């Protein structure tokens, strides 16, 4: 979680996967693999093993990278720690976040690493920075 315009909260840089509303379709219970053959310039031929997430409501936070195959980057994924919707079940956590959100823009990471604005009103929680005419950022940029 990242707080903009808010200092010394004690929660800065804590990445949290917020409940299923965020995780749906973006988390993974695991990964599947696939061998890919590529043909590139200068007669290059190669195979690479890539991984892609198996989606589910909850799961592992997914990041994507590119692997080189004959000069072309092919998207592959990996997981880093788990989504922890239970974090938001900690007594007082939601209340404290709601209080922060009254005076600050509170960003929480979803399971794909994108940051979205935390809003105590769950109907508004899906709004993200893109909808507010900002560049969509991800945790790779914010870390």
């Amino acid at each position, binding site marked *: 979680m990242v707080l903009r315009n808010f200092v010394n909260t004690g929660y800065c840089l804590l990445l949290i996967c917020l409940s299923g509303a965020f995780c749906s379709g973006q988390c993974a219970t695991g990964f599947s693999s696939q061998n890919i053959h590529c043909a590139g310039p200068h007669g290059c031929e190669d195979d690479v093993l890539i991984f892609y997430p198996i989606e589910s409501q909850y799961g592992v936070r997914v990041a994507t990278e590119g692997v080189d195959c004959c*000069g072309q*980057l092919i998207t592959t994924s990996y997981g880093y720690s788990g989504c922890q919707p239970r974090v938001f079940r900690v007594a007082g956590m939601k209340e404290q976040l709601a209080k922060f959100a009254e005076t600050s823009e509170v960003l929480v990471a979803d399971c794909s690493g994108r940051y979205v604005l935390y809003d105590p009103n769950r109907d508004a929680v899906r709004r993200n920075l893109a909808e507010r005419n900002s560049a969509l950022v991800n945790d790779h940029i914010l870390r």
Partner: protein
Amino acid sequence: MNNTAVGLLLLVTISPSLGAQDAHVPVPPDSHAVPVYTISFERGEQIPGLDAPAVVPPFQCTEDGTVFFNQPRPPDPAAPFAANLEISSVSVSREVHSFPLNHVPDLYDIRQKDYYGSDSNVVFLVKAARENKQAMQTLTAPDRSQVHGSENVAEHYSYVLVFDREGKFQEAVQIDEAFQIVKLSVFPSGTFLAYGYDKSDQSPKLAMLKDDGKLIKFLEIPPGDAPESALTSVPSDKGSSFSRIAPVQFVPSGRNIIVVQNKTSFPLLEVNEAGAIRAIRADLPNEAQINTLIPSDNNLYARVNEGSVGTIYELNTRDGSVLRKFRMAEGGTANIACVHERKFLSFETGQGKLLPLFGSMDFPAAPSPDR
């Protein structure tokens, strides 16, 4: 199993009647009516000393019940454009071993293509270079943008890296590249069985290699028992030229190895140490296809794509006939690791840790109407 759980690997215990063709479990003579069992699970204690955010099925399992699994990791800064994978194993006694590929002497930029755990060692099929020759490269991203970065541009060759079962590196064997090898396994004698395709016509190939990496012979796949091409083009509107390689799984079966042509109607191919191939045609209902074969020390356990977590059919190794059918209980897992001494072994990952789950099998319900 709890839906909020993350990732999966289960260690499932099935009731004593699970064993293949047990005398005390009647198998109906009518092959069109097989007993249906339900498997349910309960969670065991966390496996200590292992960080496992996500594992990649299918798992591998050796005869002693040790489960091997692959984990994609964040990129290594030294090789930012290569997949960074890590293999770990967990034994029945909860002993954990890892198999790091980045400390192999005299090889650089080691890229894992496949691995196989046997009773005596663990072998990896890799591409690697003999020197570290870094140079700036321009790569094309999926959106056609250009990315610049340093890579090892030295010539890469195919190797088999051999580790002992405790994760200690033993030797690197350079192998003949008579064809494009994508999968590797090893017989108890030390002879390698490799799957790949011919670069010229893309036809699938099975071959045996000596323990020094030299080609012994190509194996004769019976006509019609494998696709004509191992590659399927990936449609792209961005000018890329990629193909999917038909997924194949190697599963040990006694001293033999079974080649599973996943998610196809092609038969299982049982290969013995002499290189003879025997096709096993699974007698599955409704033209169901085998997603994966669950490693087992007795008979074959085929997971097919029925329902949200699938169905498992126990097949007779001799003729592929269905002996039993298993369904997962509500909330069950799709990722059973193996069947060992009448137990189903698997795990679940939660909050980055590995949790064994123990399951049991209900008594059979009415015979399946689809059989």
